[in-house]
């Protein structure tokens, strides 16, 4: 044997010993008896991934098992969601879905290989992320009322940026435009970063985006925010009015993240997972980190699986008339 084989031979024995330990047969104990895989349909480090990691980190302590995050990117998260829909419904494969994968995808992709309601058991809502109406810093209107008038008057001149078809910024901007009754030119970018860059540089006029990325830019004065599309003002931006206060109550949008299990997952497993989610959301450290992200933590009544099921139903009904199929 050459040195290559020799150098590996040492590790070889150790590996075999390690594997023997691993293959100890799983006992029929109460769930969970082994690692749980959490599919995150977006890249590591993205808003959904960050929320999923914060919450599952605490859930793993409650459940006494490691939760492995598996980031599967592609097609606005639908690739991963399809995979989760087809996974074994034993509670060992879960998915952190969001507004896009479990609501907006229904009207956007008529050929979707899954249905958010028919193929998933709702487990629990994790957090909501408010949507802001943002504009380049030198856009003439000073408040939302002026902005509405400006966009209506300059419908053919304004450019709205978004982070790609099916992204949160895209679908929420579609909602805003349909509420305003305008059809401006939408300039697509590859993700929130480049879209924000264009807005800061003044190459586009306005966009809708999640609060996470926008707060430091607003505070730094490189862009401005007209309103936040939630019922209440957000603690991280106390000076930005809600859409209701500013005169556009019809525009309400929040990007939410929630855990789902494949259809047919046993009710006791779902209940156990839901309890772990609720426990995590009540944890001081988890709450602090979610609030730092500008997230809205769901109230007790909104944390049950049934409440999540209703949310999904309502969201599908809300987005269907606004979004047109991409194909």
């Amino acid at each position, binding site marked *: 044997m050459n040195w290559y084989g020799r150098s590996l031979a040492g590790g070889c024995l150790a590996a075999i010993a390690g594997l023997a330990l691993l293959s100890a047969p799983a006992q029929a104990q109460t769930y969970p008896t082994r690692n749980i895989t959490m599919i995150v349909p977006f890249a590591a480090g993205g808003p959904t991934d960050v929320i999923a990691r914060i919450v599952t980190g605490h859930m793993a302590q409650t459940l006494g098992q490691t939760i492995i995050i598996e980031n599967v990117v592609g097609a606005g998260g639908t690739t991963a969601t399809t995979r989760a829909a087809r996974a074994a419904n034993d509670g060992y494969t879960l998915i952190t879905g969001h507004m896009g994968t479990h609501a907006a995808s229904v009207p956007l992709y008529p050929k979707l290989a899954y249905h958010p309601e028919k193929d998933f058991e709702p487990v629990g809502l994790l957090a909501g992320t408010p949507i802001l109406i943002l504009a380049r810093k030198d856009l003439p209107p000073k408040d939302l009322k002026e902005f509405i008038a400006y966009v209506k008057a300059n419908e053919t001149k304004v*450019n709205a940026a978004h982070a790609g078809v099916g992204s949160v910024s895209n679908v929420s901007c579609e909602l805003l435009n349909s509420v305003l009754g305008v059809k401006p030119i939408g300039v697509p970018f590859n993700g929130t970063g480049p879209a924000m860059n264009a807005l800061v540089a003044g190459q586009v006029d306005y966009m809708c985006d999640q609060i996470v990325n926008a707060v430091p830019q607003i505070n730094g004065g490189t862009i401005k925010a007209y309103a936040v599309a939630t019922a209440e003002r957000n603690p991280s931006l106390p000076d930005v009015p809600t859409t209701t206060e500013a005169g556009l109550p019809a525009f309400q949008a929040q990007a939410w993240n929630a855990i789902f299990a494949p259809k047919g997952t046993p009710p006791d497993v779902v209940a156990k997972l839901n309890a772990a989610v609720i426990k995590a959301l009540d944890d001081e450290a988890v709450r602090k980190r979610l609030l730092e992200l500008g997230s809205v933590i769901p109230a007790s009544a909104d944390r049950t699986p049934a409440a999540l099921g209703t949310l999904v139903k309502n969201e599908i009904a809300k987005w269907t008339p606004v979004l047109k199929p991409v194909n």
Partner: protein
Amino acid sequence: MGDIFSNLSLGFGVVFQFVQWTPAFLGGTSIPIPVNILLCLIGALVGTLVGVLPGIGTIATVAMLLPITFGLPPVGALIMLAGIYYGAQYGGSTTSILVNIPGEAGSVVTALDGFQMAKQGRAGPALAIAAIGSFFAGCVATVLIAILGAPLTKLALAFGPAEYFSLMVLGLIFAVVLAKGSVLKAIAMIVLGLLLSMVGSDIETGASRMAFNIPELADGLGFATLAMGLFGFAEIIRNLDAGGESDRQLVQQKVSGLMPTARDLRDSAPAVGRGTVLGSILGILPGGGAVIASFAAYTLEKKISKTPQKFGRGAIQGVAAPESANNAAAQTSFIPLLTLGIPPNAVMALMVGAMTIHGIVPGPQVMQKQPDLVWGMIASMWVGNLMLLVINLPLVGIWVRLLRVPYRLMFPSIVIFCSIGIYSVNNAPTDVIIAGVFGLVGYWLIKHDFEPAPLLLGMVLGPLMEENLRRALLISRGDWSVFLTRPLSAVLMAIAAGLLVLTVLPTLRKKRDEVFVESEN
């Protein structure tokens, strides 16, 4: 100037922070531990080791290792990530040089001459000059960020869609210059690459293009997947041919000298300098400037060289220039993140993710609000580059010895590493099959004397070019003149046109270097 020194000293203070460690077994004696230096070292080491695995490019390495930094304090996590990033990049170059498998666009160019050098038994000097060039570029870029970071930001904001489109056109011309054989075939390969890059969903409408309802194609063909197939698998299949085997044995017999000779250093010094300058400038542009840094540097070297025919056949400048440019660009691409708070590329987006998970959301004020973080990171870049030099120069010997593994054992190992690598990037078995298919395509291309490098570059530039063209036209409402009326764009277009004339004229006159003549007879 005084500001810069105080800022840099703040940064180095953060990096050289000592934490008192009082282990119980020492009975109360505390040992000072330079935690951040250690994190940087570990990051660079792990990054190198993962980046060197064929099939795993820089972005994949950083994405893969990102979660291990989540448990650390923010500054430490970012310093470690920076180490991982440089390590991954250097590891990727190592794979390109040793086995001709580039993991990202930047290393495609390194593979051209680096692998030829390895074939000539000069893998050691190639690896060493890559490390030395990267270190030099890293030092210059670190100083540049510290001094000019804020004003350079304006450049990033001055580049709109029209400018990026023109820059990508320039990039395509660079890709033509890369070719060592027929220009016509090189252009055909670029266009094939552009065509392949169209697979996936359309940016503006989301419509699925040429994806044949295969879910894994919905977001297009991955660069790493294609590179693995066209370079990695195709190279293996070709080597298994009878002719390739003698080629391999040649590699194993001729290993000479691990370190570059004085002549090598003299030859590559100006290339390193020019590569650093080009890379530093291009790296600042968030929309894909760093992508073309390495081949801009290569093109420049080939064009001004007195012996352009040596390029693609083991010219040391062909390794030194792109590697320096690549590293300088990697460094200066932090500028938009540190001054604007906007991630300019996928790796930086991951960094932002790492920051948000620690509760820091970077913005335009990050320099004022978290000076220790920003300057700590800038200082750690320099330290990270130093680590790479410290880690990699001794490793050169080991890497070169790896080439002595009999090919009959080496090739199945590469197949396995590539397969696992491709699979683990997205946990998608289909990606592995796609790479296999492109392995066969690559084999066919080699047999027909088509070069895969221009194809890959076309593949990288395609989306950037199309998207920016469409954005520019949307914003200008269909007015094509924007590319010539905006000054920066016009300058880039003029350079592209000039370069095109310089490249095509000689072939039209049938006076192109002997390389072309060779392929014609």
